[in-house]
């Protein structure tokens, strides 16, 4: 088989050209919602309290007399007249009090003060100003995900891409909303140095999907924001890479024992033994490898996503429809939000909200970089592509690893088995196993539930 010497990067451009939008400052305020689990067991009652409803006509003297005779130490009147909360004197049980109350002509009913548990599952809605515009995170229920797991720096996702704006070095600047994101040393296989800075924009945007600082009152949110990142530059300033650089990058990442996930938002046609064997070695070391399906709307998944030991990720839009550019085929595994820049369906009730349906994350303006050589013009951009869908799955893989699934085959199976089935029932070539559902994957299985 002829080796491909250069692999075209799927640089997140929709068919017909790039479309970038400058950030929309969030005018919505976002509350941080938290739900503290009650400490008392559900299905029991407070052992020293009784709820009593007195009939109309019972006055304060009646209440005092009846409750005192039933064992009350003191009573509290409710706001909606006639209802009282009896606090029992020591030595009186709820059963005894009820026995004395029921049958009294002044009492309409008396019952234990039962304990109820909030049935709503906890959610964490971050206070990032632009979170309300990140429909892609709401679509996969990120707030519920974050109540279960946010990731940990002990789990590293290696991002093989154009680099990341992770440090201040020369003309490069650290992206502002990586303030709390942890980076481990990476490598630049294009320029052959230890500074894998982004000179394109793509790698920074992809990385931000995974671990942009979250709940810090600014910017956007990342799905696995507690996870650490390793920048591995295998694509140049134009977004192109080659077999050698990519295979080297995979091996470099796999040599670090903290790397548990490799994200490759890149691909092309053909095949490569060097890359295939590097992927196999990485998987053998317990690393989950995730790659983009491709943006050509073809019935064949791009390489290396089409490898059997790689999770191939396609893109859906805000309506959970296949994105018009997303590749499909028998090697497709799952879908994640990749967006459709020409649509506006992600407002309340799937109505327009005035924002394009792209994936909103931070990066620097490539036009500024191209025209001025500066890589510090950061903003928040809506970008679309299977490149953007892929890191959602990489982030989920990192969360699952932290939750306890430490085998790449099991991680893939967990993601696939819990995906929301789209299209034809069961797995199909258009949607694979369906749209990822991080909270369901993280919840795992009970004995029978």
């Amino acid at each position: 088989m002829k080796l491909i010497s250069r692999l075209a990067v799927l640089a997140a451009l929709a068919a017909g050209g790039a479309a970038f939008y400058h950030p929309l400052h969030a005018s919505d305020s976002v509350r941080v919602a938290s739900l503290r689990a009650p400490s008392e067991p559900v299905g029991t009652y407070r052992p020293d309290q009784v709820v009593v409803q007195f009939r109309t006509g019972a006055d304060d003297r009646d209440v005092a007399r009846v409750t005192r005779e039933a064992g009350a130490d003191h009573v509290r009147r409710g706001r909606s007249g006639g209802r009282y909360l009896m606090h029992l004197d020591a030595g009186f049980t709820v059963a005894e009090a009820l026995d004395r109350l029921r049958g009294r002509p002044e009492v309409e009913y008396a019952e234990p003060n039962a304990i109820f548990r909030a049935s709503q599952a906890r959610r964490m809605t971050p206070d990032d100003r632009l979170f309300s515009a990140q429909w892609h995170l709401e679509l996969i229920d990120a707030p519920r995900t974050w109540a279960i797991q946010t990731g940990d720096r002990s789990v590293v996702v290696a991002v093989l891409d154009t680099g990341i704006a992770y440090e201040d070095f020369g003309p490069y600047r650290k992206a502002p909303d990586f303030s709390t994101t942890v980076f481990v040393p990476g490598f630049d296989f294009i320029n052959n140095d230890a500074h894998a800075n982004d000179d394109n924009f793509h790698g920074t945007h992809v990385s931000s999907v995974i671990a942009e600082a979250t709940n810090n009152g600014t910017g956007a949110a990342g799905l696995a924001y507690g996870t650490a990142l390793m920048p591995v530059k295998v694509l140049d300033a134009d977004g192109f890479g080659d077999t050698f650089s990519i295979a080297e990058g995979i091996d470099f990442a796999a040599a670090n024992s903290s790397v548990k996930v490799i994200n490759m938002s890149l691909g092309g046609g053909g095949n490569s033994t060097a890359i295939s064997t590097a992927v196999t070695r990485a998987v053998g070391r317990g690393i989950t490898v995730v790659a983009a399906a491709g943006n050509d709307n073809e019935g064949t998944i791009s390489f290396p996503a089409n490898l059997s030991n790689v999770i191939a990720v396609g893109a859906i839009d805000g309506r959970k429809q296949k994105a018009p550019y997303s590749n499909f085929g028998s090697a497709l595994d799952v879908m994640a939000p990749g967006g459709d820049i020409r649509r506006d369906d992600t407002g309340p009730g799937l109505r327009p909200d005035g924002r394009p349906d792209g994936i909103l994350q931070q990066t620097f303006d490539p036009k500024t970089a191209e025209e001025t050589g500066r890589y510090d013009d950061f903003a928040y951009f809506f970008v679309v592509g299977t490149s953007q869908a892929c890191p959602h799955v990489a982030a989920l893989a990192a969360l699952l690893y932290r939750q306890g699934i430490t085998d790449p085959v099991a991680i893939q199976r967990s993601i696939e088995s819990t995906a929301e089935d789209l299209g034809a029932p069961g797995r199909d070539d258009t949607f694979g196993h369906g749209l990822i559902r991080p909270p369901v994957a993280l919840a795992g299985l009970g004995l029978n539930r």
Partner: protein
Amino acid sequence: MRMRANGVSPRPVCLAALLTVLWVPAAGAGEISLTLDGGYHDLTNSSNSAKAVFGGTSGGPTAGLAAQYGLGESFFVRAGARYFQREGERAFVAAPATPVFRLGHPLTVRIIPAYALIGFRFLKGSSLRPYVGVGGGVTSYNEESDVAGEIFTSTAAKPSGQAVAGLDYGRGTIRFGGEVMYSLVPNTIGLAGVSRVYGEDDVGGLTAVVRLSYVH
């Protein structure tokens, strides 16, 4: 022989009473006993599923109560119930014979069989009497787990079958014994969770207990 006026010596009376408690022959027909038992229940019939959520073992402690009535010297009928509760964690397993990964979300399983059975006791007249029995009843199954505030529950009450074999020792009002019970409780689990992965649906299995009976 001299007779003590108005009474009998206390020492022989105490000895006779003690012998009565320990050695009075079993009344046989109409004998009623109340039993406390405790031991270990193993979810033998769904051991893979149980091990997945319980972390490598498939059972736990159990305790029960029973009332037994003697039908003649050998036959008996018994009604009883046991309580089993075990804590575990939600897990993930992709397929049988693949690794299990425990995810830290707390899970509790409760199994309460209520049963009635008829049995036969061997070695009439002996203080050591082996027995066997067979019967059935209803077993209640309850599972509850908590994932960051979201509660997952599963409950079922299914017909069950029990078979017992045991040994009782003693002829007085207090007897000791040991028993092994095998139970079948099909179609209880297996609809979801790890039990679906393993294709196991029966929460019955082997129970081994020690028994303490008060016989009237």
